[in-house]
């Protein structure tokens, strides 16, 4: 009996947490390598369509984004439920695209300007009317390389 009592009384040794920082650092590095910085806060909800024949966009610095979709729930009171487009952090009008493109151009290296790509991230549910308008504006701004953002179809 005495044996048992003694064993039970001995305090549980604390689990060593010495390797915890290593584990967390490992996770940290994994996330640092595999993710990219979030560029903008989306004020609209965008769920891009699926496609199988897709190409990766190579150089992030050459890409400017145009988001199209319905405003998110919390902003619907302010902006309504019609599809809108977002440039940078602002909901914008179609006519703002030309200014936006030239602003993006100015930020770029001069040699890179011919390779500039505009990525259209549009929600699956939007109609082509707004997309066509955007395309016309892009042609006017002579930003002719475009990319319809899609997800990989499995």
């Amino acid at each position: 009996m005495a044996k048992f009592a003694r064993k039970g009384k001995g305090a549980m040794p604390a689990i060593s947490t010495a390797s915890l920082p290593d584990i967390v650092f490992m996770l940290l590095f994994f996330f640092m390598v595999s993710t990219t910085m979030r560029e903008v806060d989306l004020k609209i909800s965008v769920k891009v369509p699926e496609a199988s024949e897709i190409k990766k966009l190579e150089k992030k610095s050459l890409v400017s984004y145009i988001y199209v979709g319905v405003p998110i729930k919390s902003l619907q009171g302010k902006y309504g439920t019609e599809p809108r487009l977002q440039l940078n952090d602002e909901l914008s009008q179609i006519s703002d695209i030309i200014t936006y493109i030239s602003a993006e151009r100015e930020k770029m290296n001069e040699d890179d300007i011919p390779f500039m790509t505009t990525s259209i991230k549009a929600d699956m549910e939007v109609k082509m009317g707004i997309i066509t308008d955007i395309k016309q504006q892009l042609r006017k701004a002579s930003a002719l390389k475009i990319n319809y953002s899609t997800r990989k179809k499995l």
Partner: protein
Amino acid sequence: MARPIQEINAGSMADIAFLLLIFFLVTTTMDVDSGITRKLPPIQEKPDKQDDKIKERNVYVVSINLHNQVAVEGDLMPVNQICDGVKEFIKNPHNNQNLSERKDPTEIPFFGTVDQLSKGVVSLQNDKGTSYSKYIEVQNELVKAFNELRDELSMNTFGIPYKELDEDRQKAVKKYYPMTISEAEPRNVGGGK
């Protein structure tokens, strides 16, 4: 005699690392940007002149209407048949009078002089009310057709798929089957105002 140096307490290291980890989790996203790349036509000063340059038999008109129905040259067609339709139109193996014409023989590296090149252009038209997802679905089929043509050619000539070719050979194959998909000037196809 100097005191033995005390070990630095590393107990809070985990906290610091967690803090950094959470910061990165919040500020970064995981998605890789990918999509269908397309080139828009430049704006023409006089739109009429270009139009009669291309003969009607060389244009493969794919249109999507307000109700997301797809028509090829005016006839309804299911989306999954477009790919084969485009391939046949571009290849035109039996020299069909209704399908695309051949270009004059051209010199292409690795292939020599080729007289099979097609003058065909695929034109994609849509209505204002067409849904974007349908539009992308059709775009995808068109790109797929050209990718399959290139793959077939590459398999027949070099024995390996197009993606594994080196840059020069890819260029040659691209020249053999250029991706001639044109997004027409906006006009409403059926149903729209």
